[in-house]
C-alpha cells in the first residue's frame, strides 16, 4: 500500500468530521503552544540579558564586601573593602589579572546654577572608566591627570535635569555637597537594564570622592578584569585566597567578602530559565497526555464507525498491517496538525510578548523540532491501541457489524 494514498485518505477522513477533529486536537494544541511560548520567551530573555551584560565585557568579576551579594547590597555588614585592599590585589602579582578597578558609590545633592537634585555619585579610577567604556555625548572622559582634579562626567539625564535637554554643559560648574566641580563630559548609555541607572549618575575621580566628599576609603566594590577568560575561575580562587590571607581569616571561617562574575550571573539566569521551561514542559505534558487520551478515544469511535469499511477493505485484500498503518497515520496526522497549530500559536504568543516587553524575539528551533517529534509520538502511542483493534478485526465480524 502506498503511503501517499493512505495519507490522503486519512486527511479526507479527518476533514469529514472537522469539528470533532478540531476539538480532539485542542489538548495537543494547548500543550504544544504553551511549551513553545515559554521556551521562546525564556530564550529571548536569556539572549536579551546576555547581550546586555556582555556589552560591559564578560572578562571580569566583582569583589564586594559582605559574605554574600545581598549583604553587600544592604550596605556591607562587617569589614569593608578599601582602596588599600584594591591596591594590594593590584600588586599581588596574581597571574591573569589585567586591571583592578576600585569603585566607590554614594548619593549626594548635586546643583547647577539653576537647579539641584539628589543623584548617584560614582568614584572611578582610570581603570574603572576603561572597563565601563561609557559612550560620550559631549566633551571628554577623565584622563590620568584628572585623578585628583574636581572634574565630573554627567549621565545624560543628569545633564538634562541640571541644564536642560539638548544643552551641552561642558565647561559649566556644578556643586556636589557644595563643592565645585567642572563638567568635562556627558555620557549616554543605551543599555535597557543599566541605562537609566548610568544615565542618572555622576562620575568623578575616586580619590576626590573619598577625600573630599565621603571622607572614607571604603569601596562599594572592586572590579577585576582578566586577560584570559578561560582561567576566570582560577583567578577568582587566587583572589579569594589572597584576600583571606590578607584579612587573616582562619580555616573554616566564612569569607567576609564575596566574588561574583558575569558568567555566574548568566549561569544563574540560564538555570532559572531552564527550570521554568522544564516546569512548563512538565505541566504541558499533562495536557499532552490528556490530549492523547482524547485522540485515543476519538480514534476508537472512528474505528467503530468504520468497522464495516474495515471489513470491506479486508475483503478486497487489505492485510492487518495495511489497516493498522491507515489508522495510525490518521491519528499521527491529527496530532501532527495539532502540534503545528500549537507551534504557530506559541510563536505568535511569544512574538506578542516580545513586542509588549520590548525584548528581542527569538525562536527556539530545538523546541520546535522537539514539539513536532512529541506530537507525532503522542499520535503513535495513543493511536496504536485503536489501530491495532481495527487491524485485528475479523473480516466477517467487521462486515456484519451494524
Amino acid at each position, binding site marked *: *500500500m*502506498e503511503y501517499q*494514498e493512505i495519507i490522503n*485518505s486519512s486527511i*479526507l*477522513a479527518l476533514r*469529514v468530521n472537522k469539528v470533532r477533529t478540531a476539538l480532539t486536537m485542542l489538548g495537543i494544541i494547548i500543550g504544544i503552544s504553551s511549551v513553545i511560548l515559554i521556551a521562546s520567551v525564556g530564550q529571548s530573555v536569556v539572549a536579551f540579558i546576555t547581550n546586555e551584560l556582555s556589552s560591559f565585557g564578560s572578562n571580569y568579576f566583582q569583589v564586594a564586601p559582605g559574605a554574600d551579594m545581598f549583604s553587600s547590597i544592604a550596605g556591607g555588614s562587617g569589614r569593608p573593602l578599601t582602596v588599600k585592599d584594591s591596591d594590594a590585589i593590584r600588586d599581588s602579582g596574581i597571574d591573569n589579572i589585567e586591571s583592578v578597578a576600585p569603585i566607590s558609590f554614594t548619593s549626594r545633592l548635586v546643583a547647577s546654577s539653576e537647579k539641584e537634585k539628589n543623584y548617584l555619585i560614582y568614584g572611578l579610577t582610570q581603570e574603572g572608566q576603561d572597563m565601563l567604556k561609557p559612550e560620550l555625548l559631549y566633551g571628554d572622559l577623565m584622563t590620568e591627570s584628572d585623578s585628583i582634579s574636581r572634574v565630573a562626567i554627567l549621565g545624560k539625564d543628569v545633564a538634562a535635569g541640571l541644564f536642560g535637554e539638548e544643552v551641552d554643559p561642558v565647561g559649566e560648574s556644578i556643586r556636589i555637597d557644595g563643592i565645585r566641580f567642572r563638567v568635562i563630559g556627558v555620557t549616554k548609555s543605551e543599555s535597557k537594564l543599566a541605562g537609566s541607572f548610568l544615565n542618572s549618575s555622576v562620575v568623578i575621580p575616586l580619590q576626590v570622592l573619598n577625600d573630599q566628599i565621603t571622607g572614607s576609603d571604603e569601596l562599594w566594590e572592586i572590579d577585576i578584569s582578566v586577560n584570559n577568560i578561560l582561567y576566570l575561575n582560577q583567578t577568582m580562587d587566587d583572589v579569594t585566597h589572597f584576600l583571606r590571607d590578607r584579612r587573616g581569616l582562619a580555616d573554616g571561617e566564612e569569607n567576609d567578602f564575596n566574588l561574583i562574575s558575569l558568567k555566574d550571573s548568566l549561569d544563574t539566569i540560564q538555570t532559572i530559565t531552564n527550570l521554568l521551561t522544564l516546569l512548563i514542559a512538565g505541566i504541558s505534558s499533562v495536557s499532552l497526555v490528556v490530549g492523547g487520551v482524547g485522540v485515543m478515544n476519538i480514534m476508537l469511535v472512528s474505528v467503530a464507525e468504520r468497522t*464495516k*469499511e474495515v*471489513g*470491506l*477493505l*479486508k*475483503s*478486497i*485484500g*487489505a*492485510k*492487518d*498491517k*495495511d489497516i493498522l498503518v491507515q489508522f495510525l497515520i490518521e491519528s499521527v496526522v491529527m496530532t501532527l496538525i495539532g502540534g503545528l497549530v500549537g507551534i504557530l500559536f506559541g510563536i505568535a504568543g511569544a512574538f506578542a510578548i516580545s513586542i509588549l516587553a520590548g525584548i528581542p524575539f527569538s525562536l527556539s528551533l530545538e523546541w520546535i523540532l522537539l514539539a513536532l517529534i512529541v506530537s507525532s509520538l503522542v499520535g503513535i502511542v495513543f493511536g496504536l491501541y485503536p489501530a491495532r483493534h481495527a487491524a485485528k478485526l*475479523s*473480516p*466477517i465480524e467487521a*462486515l456484519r457489524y451494524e
Partner: protein
Amino acid sequence: MTTITSLIELQNVSKAYSLGDGTMYQSLYGITLKINEGEFVAIVGPSGSGKSTTMHILGAIDLPSTGRYLFKGRDISQYSSDELAEIRNKEIGFVFQSFNLLPRTTVYKNVERPMLYGGVPAQEREKRVYEALSLVDLTDKAQNLSNQLSGGQIQRVAVARAIIMNPRLILADEPTGNLDTKTSSEIMSLFKKLHQKQGSTVIVITHEPDIAHLAERVIKIVDGKIVSDASLVN
C-alpha cells in the same frame, strides 16, 4: 488416471457460531461441493439457510469450524490472516448486496484500491482502472464520489473492482437484492458477459429464482445442507 483439480472444493464443511450468550448456532452441516474453473453457479435458498455462510467461507473471509476448504487444491483452512488476505486480493473478487464502496471516495479510487494492496505499479493501475470501467460502461463516472451514484451504478463499480486483479473467482452475495427488475437483469447480464467472454468462474448467491435461472448450475441449500445441485440447460 488423471485427476482434474477443481477450483474450489468444500469437504464436509460445518460452521457453528457462538451467539455471545453461551449458546452455539450451527449454520452449516457437512457441506461438500466442487466447483470447477469457468462455471457459472447460483447458490439459492431461503434466508437463514446458510447460503451466505457458504459464500463467506468460499470467499476466505470466514473459516470452516470443521472440514476442509481446498482452493486450487490447497487447504486454506489453516492459513494465516495475511495469507488469506493475499488470496482475497489476487484470487477472489467480491460483489456484496450493499455497502460495496468506500464512502467519500471517487469511483476511480474505489476500483484502484485492490491494486494498492496487491502492489500493482502506478502506471499500470490507471490503465487497468479504465479498462475495467469501460467493461461496466462507467468511464465517464470515474471522478464521481460513491454517494453520487445510483444503485445500479454502484453495483457496476463493485463489479469493476471485483475483476480489477483478474481473479479466478467472482463471488456475488445477493448482488441484485436492492435493485429493480430492469437493473437486476443488467447486472446479471454483466456477470454472464464476464463468464462467457473472459471465462471467469462466477458464483452468485440469491433467493430470486429468476436470477438463479440465468446460471448454468443451481445449488440449493436448506437448513445448512445441500438439498439439490442441478445443471441447467439454457
